[in-house]
């Protein structure tokens, strides 16, 4: 009998990701994530309102720095996230198969995530040019409109995937300069937290992405109510939840972005319009001096 065969395996503790750190939920609560056969996979944090509030503080603190980074730099960081994910592909495939995916499906999902990150990495310094405008106003003014990030986005990841939906939502939101608090899939939470480890090793500043696990029904009202959140994103075709979200979001006129008709595994789920869903448009005016008779008529 070899020594290694008797070695006890180290089990991973799935903690959450807030402000670039991996704390446990402050509530001390947990739930058991299990696969369809009922096999327990891990004890997962059942996050509370306080965890969410802490995440909003972290996201707000990170916003000024992240939104003012060069777009090129944001693109590089998204590319780096893809690189890190590529390097840990095997780990994610294994984790996804634990969560009931076939090996082929797991490989396809991880590869889609990597490609999607690369896709949005490229958009970081391009969508502004597509969606900006120099406006030909009739008066003597220089006038232009540019997209700017909305700010802090609270999102619920698509619940039917462990990784792909989460990545498909995080990427366009941070590519556009927002910071985000995202609740992973309740049923399949493992890869959300493992993805946090990827983010953590990708030069992404702490607080730009904050990942929580827990119950949608418990946290959704807090997402919608928090007065320092600028936008909420929700992807389930659940009318009651959507109504609750839109209703409470009115408290501070949060933007409500509903993506309940997406096929996350197809190319239709990625576009610069996904980035624009989380952008404001700012218009700037400045007079043009118009004195004397000098004309650029040469």
């Amino acid at each position, binding site marked *: 009998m070899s020594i290694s065969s008797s070695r006890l395996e180290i089990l991973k503790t799935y903690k959450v990701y807030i402000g670039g750190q991996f704390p446990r939920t402050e509530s001390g609560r947990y739930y058991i994530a299990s696969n369809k056969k009922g096999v327990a996979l891990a004890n997962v944090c059942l996050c509370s309102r306080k965890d969410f509030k802490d995440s909003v503080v972290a996201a707000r603190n990170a916003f000024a720095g992240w939104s*003012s980074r060069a777009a090129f730099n944001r693109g590089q960081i998204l590319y780096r996230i893809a690189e890190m994910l590529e390097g840990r592909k095997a780990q994610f495939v294994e984790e996804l198969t634990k969560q009931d995916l076939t090996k082929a499906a797991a490989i396809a999902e991880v590869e889609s995530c990597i490609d999607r990150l690369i896709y949005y990495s490229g958009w970081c310094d391009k969508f502004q040019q*597509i969606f900006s*405008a120099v*406006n*030909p*106003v*009739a*008066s003597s*003014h220089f*006038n232009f*409109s540019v997209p*700017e990030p*909305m*700010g802090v986005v609270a999102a619920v990841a698509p619940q039917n995937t462990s990784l792909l939906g989460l990545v498909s939502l995080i990427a366009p939101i941070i590519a556009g300069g927002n910071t985000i608090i995202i609740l992973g899939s309740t049923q399949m939470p493992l890869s959300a937290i493992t993805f946090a480890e990827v983010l953590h090793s990708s030069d992404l500043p702490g607080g730009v992405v904050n990942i929580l696990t827990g119950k949608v029904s418990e946290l959704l009202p807090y997402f919608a109510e928090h007065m320092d959140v*600028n936008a909420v994103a929700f992807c389930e075709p659940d*009318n009651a939840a*959507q*109504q*609750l*979200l*839109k*209703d409470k*979001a*009115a*408290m*501070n*006129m949060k*933007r409500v972005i509903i993506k309940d008709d997406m096929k996350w595994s197809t190319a239709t789920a990625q*576009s610069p*319009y996904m980035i624009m869903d989380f952008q*404001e*448009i*700012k*218009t*700037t*005016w*400045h*007079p043009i001096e118009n004195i004397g008779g000098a004309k650029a008529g040469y």
Partner: protein
Amino acid sequence: MSKAIKKNTIQLKFDSARVYEPAIESKSAAKIKPVYDLFINGKFEKPLSKKYFNTINPASEEILSSVAMAGKADVNKAVLAARNAYERTWKKMPAAERAKYIYRIARMIQEKAREFAIIETLDGGKPIRESRDFDVPTAANHFFYYAGWADKLEYAFPNRKAMPLGVAGQIIPWNFPLLMAAWKIAPALATGNTVVLKPAETTPLTALKLAEIIQEADLPPGVVNIITGAGDTGANIVNHADINKIAFTGSTAVGKIIQRAIAGTNKKATLELGGKAANIIFDDAPLDQAVEGIINGIFFNQGHVCCAGSRLYVQESVYEQVIQKLKDRMETLIVGNPMDKNTDVGAINSREQLATIQRYIKLGNQEGAEMYQSACALPKKGFFCKPTIFTNVAQSNRIAQEEIFGPVLAIQSFRTDDEVIEKANNTAFGLSAGIWTDKGSKIFNLTSKMRAGVVWANTYNKFDPTSPFGGYKESGYGREGGLHGLFPYVKLV
């Protein structure tokens, strides 16, 4: 050792009798009917509610006309007309033809510009100079601009096809009645939607005049329906099950009610709500121009402007100088009869709004701010308010936090760029901001850090059909004007 300051500017003498002879615009150049019905399905129809209400001239309190009060059954009728027009006519019409109808409306507004300006001023109280030179031409231009988009939408949305949403319910405010109607109707029609529009209770007349033009332009019946009424009429539009899109301009309080009302539906919304814009004067700014900008920012249209520069921040080193110049300039403002072409500040739109403004003025005094009002005489009749500024204002004062929607300015000083950025953004609103400095890099630092949808640098209160307008935060969402103003009216497939 004191050194005499060289005086090389001409000193204005405000105590000398510089009186302008009145130059009153003629009422007779405009035709106002004694009674207006609802414009539904291309015809003026008596309201099923059988009710009417009066609209008055706020400068004289005289009754101008009696207008129909649309009840629920009338709203249903208007929405049905819009739905039928959408399904049967408008969405099928070649886009280039749609464009030509919108061009017609633009041209007819231009033809009747003087009449529109007179009615706008009589019904709303704004100076005729502003109706004539700003509201009416800008409204016509807005139709002209969006007309041209109708058959060019495939160039606006790369890699997507733009489909109309259906029937748009549009509710507009009383501060720029015709212009807001243009901002709402023009992009909706250009993108293939049909419209039910409700003008504000106190200023329905130019929208009804626009209805006459729409009739004259032979627009297919039901494509634009204009129904008058008050808050209940608006609520009936918002809650109507067959409306696909709500576009609202008005207060943040009502905007929140609308968002809640449509929370359980798939209605899309554009909300253009209140503001409390910071107008920031740095010590290197051209101060005389900046003072003009302050005046224009807060006293344009009696301060009934959602993007009014109602919070003034002046850098400490020029504070005394700017305040003195501002006070001097305020004394030259001509306040009074809106129909006088010399008038700068006209009548407050309604008795209710005047009461609101007066309540805030009282509050400002109670909060310990120092008030200064120009020494002008106000007309005996009608609703008027003296141009008013408050100094010694604290950031937490209600007059510095809440939208007053009148000619009342809250002034604070600041020392550093970072300080003023913090202060300017320390508000629930985010519609607009103003920045005055001679230094280009400082302009771009400030404009990029303002959390506001429209930023004017070394200018203020400028608008153009090609230029997107709309807010951040609690000032609402969606843009009106320009290419970006098309997005709220389309579904991209």
